[in-house]
């Protein structure tokens, strides 16, 4: 059978994924809502909604606005907290033969470290993804992931706290994304994932109020894809560690574009809202493309763009 001869497996740190398609944090909940639509065993990995030590209420509504070929969200990192996740969600997720990557964040470096320790002590957490696109309480709420020095320090500290595969999720709201990837690599990250959302804003011209209660929010979806592909390509030239590419992936072609730009794996975010089974369509589509083009291993596509 043709299917058999095609190798979709990829490695991210210590993880071996059966295929390169994962879910993007915050767009797949804790996986359970999607089990009705797809076989969770078929995913490369499941990345869950970002968790913090304590549950977080999130921002007041409205939290989302549609924009041309994209959307803005300002969920405010609402989550059930790490303890609840471990107790209530992880047992369900552990049933599947799919790595669970836990996205997490904190208000301070100390919180990041404690979160990483706690998650690393839990069975069934396959890898950690640090979201550094969040406000740093200690530094007047500026964003951790936009200052290379802060990024370096926080990744170094978290690295000491975990022996799980550590993925650093980069913010695209920076002048030099390749620098941020290098900083993460040097500080001990096993992989980087990008892009998180681009900061955006929308205003209701009738009420003259921002359409999001939080004023600004994160732009995601097909609109941002060209920026995301560019950033993945820049990072691929800058670092040795694997890259997980995301930002507007809604088709197999989109996923392949990221892989050609240098991504070892990809994540589907906003696409899950368009169709809850989109990840499976993308996996199948990548396989068909490889069959048609006679490509044996997905790794042959990685970074294969000819510039």
């Amino acid at each position, binding site marked *: 059978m043709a299917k058999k001869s095609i190798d979709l497996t990829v490695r991210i740190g210590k993880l071996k994924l059966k295929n390169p398609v994962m879910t993007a944090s*915050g*767009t*797949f*909940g804790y996986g359970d*809502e*999607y089990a*009705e*639509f797809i076989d969770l065993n078929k995913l490369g990995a499941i990345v869950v*909604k970002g968790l913090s030590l304590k549950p977080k*209420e*999130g921002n*007041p*509504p*409205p*939290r*989302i*606005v*549609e924009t*041309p*070929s*994209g*959307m803005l*969200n300002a*969920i405010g990192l*609402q989550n059930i907290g790490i303890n609840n996740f471990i107790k209530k969600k992880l047992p369900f997720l552990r049933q599947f033969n799919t790595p669970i990557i836990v996205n997490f964040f904190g208000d301070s470096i100390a919180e990041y470290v404690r979160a990483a320790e706690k998650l690393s002590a839990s069975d069934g957490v396959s890898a950690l993804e640090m979201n550094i696109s969040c406000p740093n309480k200690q530094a007047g709420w500026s964003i951790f992931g936009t200052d290379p020095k802060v990024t370096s320090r926080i990744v170094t500290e978290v690295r000491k706290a975990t022996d799980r595969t550590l993925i650093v999720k980069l913010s695209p709201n920076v002048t030099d994304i390749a620098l941020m990837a290098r900083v993460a690599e040097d500080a001990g990250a096993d992989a980087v994932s990008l892009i998180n959302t681009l900061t955006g804003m929308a205003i209701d011209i009738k009420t003259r109020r921002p359409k999001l209660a939080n004023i600004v929010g994160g732009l995601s*979806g*097909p609109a941002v894809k060209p920026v995301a592909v560019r950033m993945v390509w820049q990072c691929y030239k800058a670092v040795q560690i694997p890259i997980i590419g995301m930002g507007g992936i*809604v088709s197999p072609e989109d996923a392949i574009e990221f892989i050609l730009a240098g991504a070892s794996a990809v994540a589907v975010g*906003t696409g*899950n*809202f*368009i*169709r*809850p*089974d989109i990840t499976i369509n993308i996996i199948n589509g990548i396989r068909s493309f490889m069959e048609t083009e006679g490509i044996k291993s997905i790794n042959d596509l990685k970074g294969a763009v000819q510039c």
Partner: protein
Amino acid sequence: MNRLFHASVAENKQLIKNHYLLTLRPLENIKKPKPGNFFMVAVDNGLDPLLKRPISIHRWLDGDFQLLYRVAGKGTSILGGKKPGDILEILGPLGNGFPLNIKSENIILVAGGLGIAPIFALAELLRKRNPSLFCGARTKNEVLCTDELKDIGIDPVVATDDGSSGKKGNIVNVLKEHIKTSHVTDNILFACGPEPMLKALSTLAEKLNLQGYIALEQHMACGLGTCLGCVVKTTKGYKRVCKEGPVFPIEDILWE
């Protein structure tokens, strides 16, 4: 029973300006929706509009079903252009729906404007129990579903802002008068409509200590409870309209 399915347009009838009744024929077996459930409807296959649109179940016709919608923007205006035979991708039924194990004998339904879309479904289901229906609208021709209501034997109390049909004024005030004069105590309210109406209703319910449920709207991305985009503030914290709602106990909602 797939909750992600396709349906073909059987009819897309314009009722009045900007208001359409869309009859859909699912191409797969679907779960029968409860009143208060909604569907996320993809208006086309493109990337703009990107997200599906939430629309309530209006009427279940033994397999076929109807949505009643108003052209409010980009997505619903594309929907307004659909012709018989066009195929739509749809997710649902979604949400909790109205609670149906009601003990109260006095069922009061309140629909403001297009709030009749989901309230009709409830009225049809509860019609044997003689619910009273209060319909508010801006003007006479925006009082919708009058024929359909007659079909199911319900004669609504109507109020319009300009008095062109029924009483003149606010439907909540009309309801208030009704409750005052009826002297019945175990009323239960079910309502859907614009926020100002629901707020007024909630004040009324609190004052008169009425039990009630209201269907809310909020911008949605997933419709499945995963994006956390559609929350409303309640006495129990933020709750998702798509999952814990769209129907909430009226006393739970914390208005701005």
